[in-house]
């Protein structure tokens, strides 16, 4: 009876929730009309782009809205009891220790000056009145449950002594110590590398089954949501526009926004030749100026006159499938045609690629080390041994003219350093860089201005790519003046032409960076890089901090410009689907070394380097039916200060064959067609590996 009863009352039931924030410009409704429920043992995903109100819902539930936020309408039932309108004290009693929350940044949840053990056991000592010894015991148990290696030792460490993935595990362990009925996770893996993310997601899944916890999982990543949730709610501009079981959402999405989101992400394994990305036009309206009818109407490809007047309610379109759209059934039946204005025609680019091109950039045994002094007394007086962080160690690659080389790897593998070394922002420690036959092994300060012009960079962070003090026009115009690309009196016209090339209009000329969105800043950064008409552009994670719909637009833009100018590109990213989509050749890096390099399609199919294989098995795929081999790396990336001997990957390699991996550098195995794998395992065996991902 009791179990039956439990199933019937949802752990969390949110109805018609509306939350608004007071701002200087009056109240802003950040969340409107949101309803959903989560049952015991169920994971409910909430997905949407930034600024859609995902986190606001979570904060509303735990009453963390801050001084200017308040719940203005609706109800939140936690285990059948109303939370709204209760005092702080009552809330604490009602919720007790039954709701736990895990945030994106584990460092914010951990006290940096307390040992892990003290922080964990405090929870039990305070809430459960356990003795110190009993609490310690339980904490170690819990750390074992979250697969923390060496829990006894971890208990004695401080948070900064753990890696990001380990910290997040501690936070999850802390959240689970009280055995909460509801666990709210707000982007818990966004800051982690894919391999660590995969392990954390496995863990969440396991814990849900084991503890029967209800989980509310918030993320912007469609792949992650497909992996963890049972039901998914799609948020757009403060409203839930679609809600359905996970398979329904991914295979049979009915709302135009959800469909649009799916078309924005490249599927793993698909390339620019065989597919295209279709961005959603326009941008998310600010909560202060919502359209009167359907909120998605201004960006919708199917919009009809009625959409502009009538605000659709959330309705059931199929059993368990709720949508907020007036014409969903009709559009589902309609064959979707990609709008021509959003998808670039890349035939010329593909044709050019077919011609065998000679290398434009040639790297031979490139090394970039950072000096780091050891913290001994001897080093204080200048006698200490110098240590080196080997950020890039012995890298040799070539980039053919007009092609794109993608570089992938986890954070700290030396991708960015490699790019900065090539453009000359980091001094070369050893090796040679040759560009168009010229030796460019010198830093940028010593290079000729004509050479500087040919190598430009697109940066990762939209907020720091532009100088906040100058207008867009000034910043794009500056390289034109420096390199004398066009005569002085034509600079303005050229800037406007460039702005149009990156799909921004001339009105942006006089704007300051703070008036632009992230995607717009990134476009300006691209325009600035291409203003010099360079031969080689290095893109350092140009889309990784953008929302998916903007990401698709920026990727299309880069392809279009590449086609127009015939530019060669080096494309750095950690997202394997994006790299595959964008690149002709791919290099996989680990701890400053290249493990595998070759044509893009060859990298994503056997023979694999074991590291590539485990990366591929960790990528979250936005398709709940896709089957992925489960390979999880143990341990953490070793320090580049003292990299492992022999093959650098041997400490974590699931296919380590023996002592040879620890003692000898792996040989280069040529798998044909410029595909090179650096591994001790014979090629024949690597060839026998099964593909990691199979999509039905």
């Amino acid at each position, binding site marked *: 009876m009791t179990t039956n009863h439990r199933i019937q009352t949802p752990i969390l039931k949110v109805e018609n929730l509306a939350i608004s924030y007071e701002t200087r410009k009056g109240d802003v409704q950040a969340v409107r009309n949101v309803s959903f429920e989560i049952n015991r043992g169920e994971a409910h995903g909430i997905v949407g782009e930034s600024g859609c109100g995902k986190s606001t819902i979570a904060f509303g539930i735990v009453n963390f809205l801050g001084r200017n936020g308040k719940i203005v309408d609706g109800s939140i039932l936690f285990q059948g009891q109303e939370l709204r309108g209760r005092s702080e004290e009552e809330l604490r009693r009602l919720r007790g220790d039954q709701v736990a929350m895990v945030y994106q940044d584990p460092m914010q949840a951990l006290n940096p000056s307390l040992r892990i053990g003290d922080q964990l056991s405090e929870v039990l000592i305070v809430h459960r009145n356990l003795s110190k010894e009993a609490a310690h015991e339980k904490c170690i148990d819990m750390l074992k449950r979250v697969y923390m290696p060496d829990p006894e030792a971890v208990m004695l460490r401080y948070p900064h002594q753990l890696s990001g993935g380990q910290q997040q595990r501690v936070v999850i362990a802390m959240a689970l110590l009280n055995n909460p009925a509801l666990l709210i996770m707000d982007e818990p893996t966004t800051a982690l590398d894919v391999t660590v993310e995969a392990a954390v997601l496995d863990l969440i899944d396991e814990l849900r089954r084991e503890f029967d916890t209800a989980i509310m999982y918030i993320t912007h990543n469609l792949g992650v949501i497909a992996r963890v949730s049972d039901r998914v709610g799609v948020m757009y501009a403060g409203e839930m526009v679609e809600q359905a079981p996970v398979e329904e959402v991914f295979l049979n999405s009915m709302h135009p926004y959800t469909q649009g989101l799916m078309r924005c992400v490249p599927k793993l394994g698909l390339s620019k030749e065989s597919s295209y990305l279709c961005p959603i036009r326009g941008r998310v309206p600010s909560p202060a100026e919502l359209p009167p009818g359907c909120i998605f109407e*201004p960006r919708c490809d199917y919009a009809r006159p009625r959409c502009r007047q009538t605000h659709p309610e959330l309705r059931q379109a199929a059993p368990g499938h709720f949508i907020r759209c007036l014409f969903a059934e009709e559009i589902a039946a309609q064959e979707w045609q990609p709008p021509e204005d959003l998808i670039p025609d890349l035939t010329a680019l593909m044709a050019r690629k077919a011609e065998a091109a000679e290398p434009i950039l040639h790297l031979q045994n490139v090394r970039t080390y950072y000096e780091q002094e050891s913290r001994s007394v001897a080093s204080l007086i200048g006698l200490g041994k110098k240590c080196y962080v080997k950020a890039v160690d012995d890298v040799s690659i070539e980039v053919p003219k007009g092609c794109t080389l993608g570089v992938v790897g986890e954070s700290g593998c030396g991708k960015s350093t490699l790019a900065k070394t090539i453009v000359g922002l980091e001094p070369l420690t050893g090796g040679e860089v040759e560009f168009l036959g010229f030796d460019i092994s010198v830093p940028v300060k010593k290079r000729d201005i004509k050479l*500087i012009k040919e190598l430009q960079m697109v*940066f990762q*962070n939209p907020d*720091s790519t532009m*100088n906040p003090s100058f207008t867009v026009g000034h910043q794009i115009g500056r390289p034109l003046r420096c390199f004398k690309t066009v005569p002085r009196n034509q600079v303005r016209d050229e800037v406007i032409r460039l702005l149009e090339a990156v799909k921004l209009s001339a009105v942006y000329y006089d704007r300051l960076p703070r008036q632009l969105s992230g995607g717009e800043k990134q476009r300006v950064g691209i325009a600035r890089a291409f203003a*010099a008409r360079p031969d080689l552009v290095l893109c350092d994670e140009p889309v990784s901090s953008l929302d998916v719909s903007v990401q698709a637009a920026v990727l299309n833009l880069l392809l279009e410009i590449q086609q127009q100018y015939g530019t060669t590109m080096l494309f750095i990213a950690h997202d394997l689907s994006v790299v595959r989509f964008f690149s002709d050749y791919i290099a996989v890096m680990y701890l400053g070394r290249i493990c595998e390099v070759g044509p893009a399609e060859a990298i994503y199919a056997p023979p694999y380097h074991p590291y590539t294989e485990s990366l591929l098995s960790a990528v979250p795929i936005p398709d709940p039916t896709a089957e992925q081999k489960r390979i999880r790396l143990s341990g953490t990336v070793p320090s580049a200060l003292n990299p492992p001997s022999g093959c650098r990957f041997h400490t974590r390699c699931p296919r380590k064959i023996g002592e040879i991996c620890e003692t000898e550098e792996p040989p280069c195995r040529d798998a044909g067609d410029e595909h090179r794998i650096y591994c001790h395992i014979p090629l024949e065996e690597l060839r026998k590996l099964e593909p990691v991902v199979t999509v039905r």
Partner: protein
Amino acid sequence: MAVSKRVMPRISARPSLWQRLRDAIAPVLASKVALVGLALVVFWILVAIFAPVLTPYSPLEQDAEAMNLGPSAGHPLGSDHLGRDLWARLIYGSRLILVLAPLSVLCSLAVGTTLGLLAGYFGGLMDEVVMRILDALMAFPAILLYLIIIAAVGASATNVVIAITIAGAPGIARLVRSLTMDIRTRDYIDAAQLRGENPFYIMWVEILPNARGPIIVDAMLRVGYAVFSIGTLGFLGLGLPPPTPDWGSMVCAGRRYIWANPWAVLWPSLAISSLVIGLNLFADGLREETMRYQ
């Protein structure tokens, strides 16, 4: 057909001069603290500008008939031991201090900013050399530094400015250095290097404008300190030579007759403190507001 629709950008074009001015003063208006401070400072600025209109007396005019008087109809704030009108001396004194204090801060800004940019941008040996010299300077107590400098070069308005510049520059250099080291790592600095810009362009055009907020707030506080320092130097007899209506020396001169005529000490002391407090409140309010904006 539906495809041709575009979401129109809603931000207006270049902001007008008026708009930008309003943006600039918005933080001041939003903070009560800053407003009170501003009122005090503006009061002294107005007094300084209109000094000749506000009193019939000259600050140097002695009247043997009216020595050490309290406030009266003839002398609104009283008179000093030589029979000079205190109000006249006070308001002409404000002219002096309102020129010297900002001037000395501007000088230390010029020196400190240059050194801070050089140390922060180039780092390495340049940083070590510049910062160690400045550290040595900072190790001296400010008063001792003033005494040494004035003793070496003599007391005059120019030398007061020089002394305050030397004492103030290290602090500014430290601030600018730390701001520079932070801004130097931004991507737009890399982008500038990839245009082959020379280091001085990067320092002055790319970095400095983005460091201006904290520098301006710091400079405001420093004008306050400078007022204080000028007063101190005047009091110690190291400021401007005697007949000049310097607030510090007025306090010093009045000190001898403090029991007979406390007014001669009270007014200049009040003047110094009100100006210093005004500048500090203004700077504090400004800092809080600008921080809230970020």
